[in-house]
Each structure stands twice: as C-alpha cells, then as structure tokens.
C-alpha cells in the first residue's frame, strides 16, 4: 500500500517540557490508522505538527505527492479537536467557503454538501444559520467540511467526542467507506472500543512517547494476553498458585485471572485444579480498552511489583 504520510522521529517541547518525543509512524492509502492515548498524551500536538499549525523541534513529516516542505493542504482534510464554525452564517455558505479555500470546484462542492447533509440527517438545513444548530449537528457540519473536497488524507482529531451513539455509528460507517474508497485516514481517540472496531493499525502514545505500534491483530496477539473470569467463591492463594497466572483481581465472588503471554488456552484449561468452585467461566483476550487503561494508569509497574510480592 502506498504511504501517504510518513512521520519520523517527531519531537516537540514547550519551554522545558517535552510534549512528544521520537514519534514515528506511517499512514497508508485506504487504511485507518489510529493514534491512541490518554488525555494529554500528545495526540493533538502530534496532529498539529503534521498540519503545520505548530512547528516541530525535531523530526520530519513527509507527504506523498508533495515536493519540498510545503504541506499539500488542498489534499488534506482536517477535523481539529477544538472545533467550531462561524456563527452568523448559513450552513451552505460556510461549507462552500471551506471548499473554496481548498480550491475545490464550487458546483461540485455544493452537490457533495447537499448529499452529505442528507446522509447525516440534516436535509434542508443548508440555509439555516450555524448558530441554530445543536452541538452534534455542528459537529456533522464540521465533518462534512473536512471531507467535502475529497481529500487523499483525512486527519480526524477525536471525531467521536460529544456524539450520541447513533451519530457515532454514522461517523464510523462514513469513515470506513472513505477508507474503502482509498482515503488514507489518521484518527485520534481515547475511546478504545470504537477504535478497536475500525482501525487497521494503531499507534499508542503515552506521555509523548510510543508505547505500541502495529496492526490491530498484531497488537492484540502481542499484547493482549488471555484472561479467565471465574464466578465462584475461591481463595486468592488457590488461584495465584495455578500455573501461568500472573495476576488475580477479586471482587465478591468474581475472580479475574490474568494469564501469561505464552499460555495456550485449551491446555491451560485442562490443568485447572478440580477443587475450584466454578459457576461460570469465560476465557477471552484482554481488550484494547484494558490494555489502554493498564498503560494509562501505569498498572504494568504495579503488576511487576505484585509479581515480586508473590
């Protein structure tokens, strides 16, 4: 797959504080690449550096089909995290203005705007003043603005924040279909469940540095160990002694056993002690959400400490 955007060793500091350090990743044509990380991890800073809104202290940003250091603004669609629209103008005017800024033909832009408004349940709102729109409607209009000029690279900073589930679904479908049509998409989010469903590859960032980078499947196999949830009254010591168990979390009658990465679920199940009280047992991979929380709350360290204890 063609690489549309390539970021190498990006670094940025404000005063003495290093915000991001040594960030490197690619975004390829037709894929959805997700930047994940807790609040303040450096996601928006990375994106703003890509967009040329901030200037990086270190590293390079290369766009495909762009010679020299100019950002091919007309081929990029951007939905910033801090977003708004001019208040006292009507929806169509602002969409056309933003399309014009991208040098996109106006008649085509108008056509696309109308069809998108229809798709997003905003039919007939083209003549309505922006200040009359609800927050969610405004966000839909901003999304339309970022894709109206058929960008080759679409950068979405927290596109789902503040949306209701129905609108989230609408956005997800649209983002997916754009990727299928060949648009390279870079999106940032802290909503893991959404990202898990749609991203092809992900880059997890914490405190401005890379934590995980790879395809969704690789990340899951590499980082997401199995966990076994048992409903039934069992003693902590009985559980932690089982082979391959790294960590146990207990809450009332529910115990969650975090297993080591080299565990094969079928053979592990066979060697469970017979005296265990089991009303219900599930075994599944740790979700991205859990990995994320793990990393964000520095539980890895806690786990190591726990191991030492044991």
């Amino acid at each position, binding site marked *: 797959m063609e690489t549309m955007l390539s970021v190498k060793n990006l670094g940025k500091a404000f005063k003495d504080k290093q915000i991001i350090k040594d960030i490197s990743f690619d975004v390829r044509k037709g894929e959805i690449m997700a930047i994940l990380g807790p609040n303040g991890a450096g996601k928006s800073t990375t994106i703003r550096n890509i*967009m040329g809104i901030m200037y990086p202290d270190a590293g390079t940003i290369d766009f495909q089909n762009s010679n020299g250091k100019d950002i091919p*603004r007309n081929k990029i669609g*951007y939905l*910033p995290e801090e*977003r*708004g629209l001019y208040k006292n103008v009507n929806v169509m005017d602002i969409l056309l203005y*933003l399309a014009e800024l991208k040098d996109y033909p106006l008649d085509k832009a108008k056509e696309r705007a109308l069809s998108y408004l229809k798709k997003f349940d905003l039919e007939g709102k083209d003549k309505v003043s922006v200040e009359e729109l609800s927050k969610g409607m405004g966000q839909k209009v901003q999304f339309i603005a970022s894709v109206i000029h058929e960008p080759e690279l679409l950068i979405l900073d927290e596109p789902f924040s503040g949306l209701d589930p129905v609108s989230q679904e609408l956005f997800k479908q649209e983002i997916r279909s754009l990727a299928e049509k060949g648009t390279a998409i870079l999106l940032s989010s802290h909503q893991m469940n959404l990202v898990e469903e749609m991203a092809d590859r992900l880059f997890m960032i914490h405190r401005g540095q890379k934590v995980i980078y790879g395809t969704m499947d690789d990340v899951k196999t590499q980082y997401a160990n199995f966990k076994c949830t048992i409903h039934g009254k069992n003693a902590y010591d009985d559980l932690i002694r089982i082979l391959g168990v790294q960590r146990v979390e207990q809450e009332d009658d529910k115990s969650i056993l975090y297993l080591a990465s080299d565990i094969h679920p079928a053979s592990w199940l066979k060697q469970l002690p017979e005296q265990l009280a089991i009303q219900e047992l599930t075994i599944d991979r740790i979700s991205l959400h859990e990995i994320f929380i793990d990393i964000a709350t520095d539980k890895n360290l806690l786990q190591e400490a726990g191991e030492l204890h044991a």
Partner: protein
Amino acid sequence: MRNTMKVAKWEIKRNMKNKTFLIGLFLTPILILAFGFIGSLFGGSDDAEPSATTVYVHDQTGIYPALEETINQSDLNWEMEQTDIDEADVESILEASENTAFLFINDQAIETGVVPVYTSDEIDQFFINQVQVLTTPLQALKIEQFGLTEEETASLLQGITFEEITMEDAAASEEDAEEAEAGLGADPMERMVPGIFAGIIMFSVIMTGMATFQSASQEKKDKIAEIILSSLTPSDLMQGKIVGYFVLGIIQVVVFFVVLLPFAVWKLDIPIIEYLLVPETLLLVFIAILSYLMFASIFVGIGATMSDISTAGNFQGFVMMLPFAPLVIMGPVLSDPSGIVAQVGTYIPFTAPGVLVMRLSTLEQWPWIEIIISLIVIMASVWIFMKLAGKIFKVGILMYGKNATPGEILKWLRA
C-alpha cells in the same frame, strides 16, 4: 495572494449579508444628515443675516458718491443714505431707532480730520472699526484740496509698510509670486474639501479597521481558526481580513458620499466636486489608506490575543485608543498648523496620518520635506506593525478561550 483574496471575499460577503452591518452602513450617514437637518431647523433664526446698519450721512462737501462706492466695494452690511438732519436733532432720532448711525462730513471735519459719529445704543459692535474704511476717500478729498495730481495723491495714500523677507523666502517668493497672487483670494475650502474627504475615508476605514479586531477575536471565540488554518497560512488569513475590511470601509465611504454629497452640494455654497478632483486629494487619500493599514494590522493582532472585547485588559484597551491620538492634539495643530505640536505629531507613527491630513488641509504651502519624512515614518511603521501583528496573530489565534497577557505577547514578538 489568492488565498488572501478568498478570505477577503468571504469577510466582505459575510458582512454584507449581516443585518447589523447593513443597518450601520446606511444609518451612519442618515444620522449625520438628520442631525445636520435638525440643527438647521433650530438654528434657522440665528442663521439669518443680521439686519443691516443704517448709516445716514450729512454731507456738505460732495464726497458722498465716493463714500458710497467705497462701501459697495467693501463687504459691509450697510445701508447708506444722505440726510439733511442737523446734529442737534440727531439725539432724539437715535433714541427711537436701532442699529443706526449718523456721520457729519463738512469742511470743518475735513480740515480737522475729525468726523463726528452718532450711533444708537444698539449697534453692530464692530461699527466703529468698519467706519474706518471711509478714511481713504476722506483723506483723498483732503489731499485733493492741496491741488496734487491723482498720482501724487495715490502715492501719498499708499503709506509705508515694512515687509520681512528671510533668505529662504527670497528664493521661494520669486517662483511663488504668481501663484500667491492667484491664491490670495482663494477659498480656504479649496484645501479643506480634499482634507475633509480624506478625513472621512480615514474615519470610516479606521472604524472598520476596528472591526478586524472583532473578527479576529470572533475567530478565536468560535474556535474555527484551526479549521481555516488547515487550508491556508496565518498570514493569508490575517491579510485577507485586513483587505476584506478595507473594502468594507470603502463601501461605507461610498455609501456615505452617495447619501451626503447631494445634500452637501445643495446646502453648502461650495463647488465641492471641483475642489475634490485635484491631485492633492490623491495624496491625502493615500495617507488615509496607510493609516488604515497601520491600525488594521495593530487591531487584528490584538484581536487575536483575546476572545472577547469585554475581557480586554488595560493594555488592549489602551491600544484600542491609539487611532484617536490625533484628536487629542487636534486643537493645537489646527490653531497653528506649522507649530511645534503639529511638527512633532507629524513624525509620531500613531498621530502622523491624522496630523498630516489636518495640516495639509489648512496649510497654504505644503511643507514637502516634512510630508516626505512623515510618509516614510508611516510606511515603515505599517511594515513593522504588519510583521509584528503577523507574529502575534499566528500564536494568539489558536489560543482558545484564554486572553494573552502583555508578557506573553512580548514573548511571541521576540520568538
């Protein structure tokens, strides 16, 4: 440049569709007109010409026709008549009348050189000065009695005056002699009209220049700056705003003149159009445009440092007052357009455009050296302020929901 024009076009379109702007556009000249009209209604009686002074002349020397001619040539508002009334009867007549005077010209008066004048209690306060114009024909009569020729009489009457000529003037005066002669009777309005025109342009564009401030801080408040800046550079956006609001200012000026000019031409007895279509107007308008560029870039920069005018700090408030600096020294400048205040004001960037327009409207001779230095000062400041505003704008516009402190602004300027 193309992006600048796109932004400019958008700003114009956005405002021309905005009801507040449209109402303001037409309301301002209409208000001025309305106040002018109401003013003339109330002032109507005061404006009427004061009643003429009636001057009765008891002439025993036959000089009356010469006197009448002198009065006609002067602009005095006199009604002069001959009379036979004696000095003895005058008192009773004057008691019953207003604005009336009696002159008694006889041989004795010519000989002694003292003409008795009786006036009513109510009389033009300048009457005794006005009556001095009659000195010349009376003196002429007196000299004639010595039997001198007309030329001798004229020479005698001319008297002696002292004229001060410095070295500078000596050179200039030769060239200007003709011009000065022509200009002697020239209407001061001839210079004033282009000045007032430039003043109105300056006022309008500075007012819309202040709107660039609004526009920049609105951009911050609406949090759209980042979306816009994904399509163009901060300097494109800033320049677009400056150009756009300039055009809006010019639209305001055009509306102003379309509404006001017909009334001005009708009401005022000045050939406004002829006075306006002179090369001087171009220079004055050029100064007005420079002044716009300077203040608009200052405002757009300051606007980018805050999200709301109501949260403006002292520093920002102070900057907003800068365009009004020339008004502060308006009095001294107008009363002495070549004085020290005027000259100093010509070289201070913030006051230079205003003071220059005021001086050029009142001065008969334009001080070209000063004008050129002043223009250089203004143009250099425009360039510097645009650069500085660009730096502030670039950082400030993305700082959502927070006002910049003077310290921060200083830091951005150094960056």
